[in-house]
């Protein structure tokens, strides 16, 4: 290609306290190109984005915008050159209407007058949204929009600031699959208007669906630029982690019978779900999927005592139990690794050991209610060892860990309670494929130890890998059960979409 690249990074190097987060990385984005960045957590993807958008100064190398070199890149300069980053939290104002979010730069920026020109602003916002092929009422407040619509608003805001390159950092993590398709459509629309995209995602399917080019980074070094047509998932995975992943899919021929470890009989909680009956046997992994809002998370919370059901019965080993609060769930041998590990699963500022032992304080304490530090450390170290948590000290705060290791700490917290029933709600969201493989192995080990596992997930691949059978929920009811040879990715996806 002879055209001038929109962004060109040459021999980019960035070190933090002696460690090279980026080591001599070359990177180019052509106008209108969709570049996918692939790499495990900590490989340097985020650092690269920060350098290109001027958030982090670079130590060596050059970054050229449209062929021009700049002595130093600041966020303002990057924005003037048309580089817009859409972070995971989207940085929108939830209380303000869509149009004010889209043109807030104009409202608060240089072109401001004494009064906000409402009609002009709304027309402008509608136009930007139309460029994405999205229809959202510009008067609606952002907090009332779905996650996908919010994302559109954030992208429209980037366009309103004359974006030539939109950088999306894991934009699909929080999106249900229907909205993911819509987002990929938006990226294609941008491409047709000559606007380039850097797209970061842990979901490999998405990369193959839209990438013009896949740039792989490992340990701060570029592995290479690849044409997606030359790669398949296995090869991409291999290039990302530098070794072959060896996860065996679950044995589908196993038959589970006898008394279920947990059994739901006609469980109801309006308006979330109704008539839910299912059973999970010891040693079995049952997958549960469905769109967000299908009632699966609400049902999981009911089993854990956080959303007590209106009617129906829950039986543990054949005996009816009522779980009115989480401490009763723990007493009944039920553990829940909840959906949002950062806010629900962890005490981020507390040491790893404290997190691991949080649910078993009563058991660690002596008869005066005292927990000795040595005891706590022993338990923390034992579980970090078993689950292969990578940390330099178990006294480090949980927030210092990477996503995959944080999730292992949450798993350790629940495994330490010795549950018979373990409910996992989206356990691998936002986790790279290396750590994912660890967690899949762990799920199998836990099941092999005779525990009943209920695995809630959006990812059909994950369910195919781990679950003995898969239940699909739709608008609060169990719509399908896929077992044996039927539990394939394609059939799961079709059932989720109401096929």
């Amino acid at each position: 290609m002879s055209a001038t690249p929109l962004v060109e990074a040459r021999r980019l190097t960035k070190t933090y306290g002696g460690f090279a987060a980026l080591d001599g990385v070359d990177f180019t984005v052509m106008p209108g190109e969709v570049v996918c960045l692939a790499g495990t957590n900590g490989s340097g993807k985020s650092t690269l984005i920060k350098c290109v958008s001027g958030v982090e100064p670079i130590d060596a190398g050059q970054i050229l915008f449209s062929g021009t070199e700049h002595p130093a890149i600041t966020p303002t300069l990057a924005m003037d050159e048309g580089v817009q980053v859409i972070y995971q939290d989207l940085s929108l104002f939830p209380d303000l209407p869509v149009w004010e979010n889209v043109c807030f730069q104009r409202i608060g920026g240089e072109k401001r007058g004494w009064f906000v020109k409402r009609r002009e602003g709304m027309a402008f916002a509608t136009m930007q949204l139309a460029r994405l092929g999205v229809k959202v009422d510009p008067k609606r407040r952002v907090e009332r929009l779905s996650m996908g619509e919010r994302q559109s608003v954030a992208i429209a805001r980037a366009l309103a600031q004359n974006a030539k390159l939109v950088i999306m950092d894991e934009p699909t993590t929080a999106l249900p699959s229907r909205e993911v398709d819509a987002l990929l459509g938006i990226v294609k629309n941008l491409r047709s208007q000559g606007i380039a995209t850097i797209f970061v995602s842990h979901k490999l399917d998405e990369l193959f669906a839209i990438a013009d080019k896949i740039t792989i980074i490992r340990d701060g070094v570029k592995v290479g630029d690849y044409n997606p047509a030359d790669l398949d998932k296995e090869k991409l995975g291999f290039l990302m982690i530098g070794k072959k992943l060896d996860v065996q899919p679950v044995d589908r021929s196993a038959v589970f019978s006898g008394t279920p470890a947990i059994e739901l009989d006609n469980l109801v909680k309006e308006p979330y779900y109704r008539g839910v009956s299912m059973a999970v046997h010891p040693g079995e992994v049952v997958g549960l999927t469905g769109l967000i809002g299908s009632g699966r998370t609400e049902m999981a919370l009911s089993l854990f005592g956080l959303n007590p059901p209106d009617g129906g019965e829950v039986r543990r080993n054949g005996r009816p139990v009522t779980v009115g609060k989480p401490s009763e769930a723990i007493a009944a041998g039920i553990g829940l690794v909840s959906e949002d590990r950062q806010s629900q699963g962890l005490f981020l500022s507390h040491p790893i050991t404290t997190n691991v032992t949080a649910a078993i304080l009563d058991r660690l304490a002596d008869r005066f209610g005292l927990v000795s530090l040595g005891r706590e450390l022993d338990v923390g170290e034992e579980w970090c060892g078993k689950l292969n948590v990578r940390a330099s000290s178990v006294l480090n705060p949980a927030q210092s860990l990477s996503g995959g290791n944080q999730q292992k700490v949450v798993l350790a917290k629940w495994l330490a309670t010795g549950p018979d029933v373990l409910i996992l709600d989206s356990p691998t969201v936002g986790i790279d494929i290396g750590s994912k493989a660890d967690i899949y192995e762990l799920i199998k080990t836990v099941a092999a130890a005779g525990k009943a596992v209920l695995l809630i997930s959006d990812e059909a691949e994950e369910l195919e890998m781990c679950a003995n059978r898969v239940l699909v929920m739709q608008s609060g009811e169990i719509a399908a059960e896929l077992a044996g040879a039927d539990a394939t990715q394609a059939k799961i996806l079709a059932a989720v979409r109401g096929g």
Partner: protein
Amino acid sequence: MPEKIQRRWPIDMDSMILAGILVAILAFMGFALGDSFFNIRNISSMVSQIPEFAFLAMGMGVAMITGGIDLSNVAAMNLSGIVLALCLTSSRLAGGVGIWGAILIGAVSALLVGVACGVFNGLSISRFGIPPIIATLGSMLFFSGLGVGITNGEGITGLPEQFTRLINMTIVELPPPFLFMLAVFVVMSILAPRLTTGKTLYMYGSSRVAALFTGLRIGKSLALGYALSGLFAAVSALILVGRTNSIKVGYGDTYQLQAILVVVLGGVNPDGGKGKFGNILVAVLILQILQNAFTLFMFTPYAKKLIWGGMLLAFMVVRTLLEKWSDRRKIRARMAQMAEGA
């Protein structure tokens, strides 16, 4: 484990800074005031003033570690002080069980009243979900109202001298309340982070949502935490009544703001989850020395208020700046670790 795990506590920045400030202030006092500060009379008057305030500060510390606040502890102190004084001045009680019996009954009732006040706060926060600042603001007015109702707003004086002598005696130049306070600080420093209830409260302060999702016993622990704050308020009442030989609604009102100030100064995170009682003690000492200096410099009460308020705000600003700075360092270190570990 790929790496060897180290059993090592991180260095506590807050303790170092506080110790530094204490030493600096002492040095300044020696330099600026010399003997008018460092003399037996001045120091022993300080030592006798510290305990009643220190107990209030400890109670405030417990509440703030849970991410709450206890605006009612001075009111609770007054209420239990009133109950104590009523028992001590009741001639019928003294006639029945003797003066020492009356002192014992009075002290126990006062402590019970303090605990009851605290449980009242704890339940309204955990059972009814009232935000702590509102719940304790309400109970502050309620407790003061009760106190005024009982006393008609008048002071109670003329306590038996057996009681005041007990509180004001000295053991090796030090008053018993001061020694007791030191002992309680030591016990709190050791036990608070190790007891299941204490750990639960620290975790609850750090993240309420995670505490809920972990199945911690939140209601019981909060009730116990605020009960402890109430108990400390009552201990403070025993000392105050003994020292001033009187009690009246409104006594010690200035302690309320100062207790918040001193707890924040002691490095307790006002959002909860973090704080050490040893550091609160150092902060109490710093505040008391400054208080004493203001008196020696003959500042007006208005100037004092101005300085306390200013200090609270200034300290929060400095703290935020320091945190930002160390966060940035932590992020750098974390990135380096990730780059190394990836």
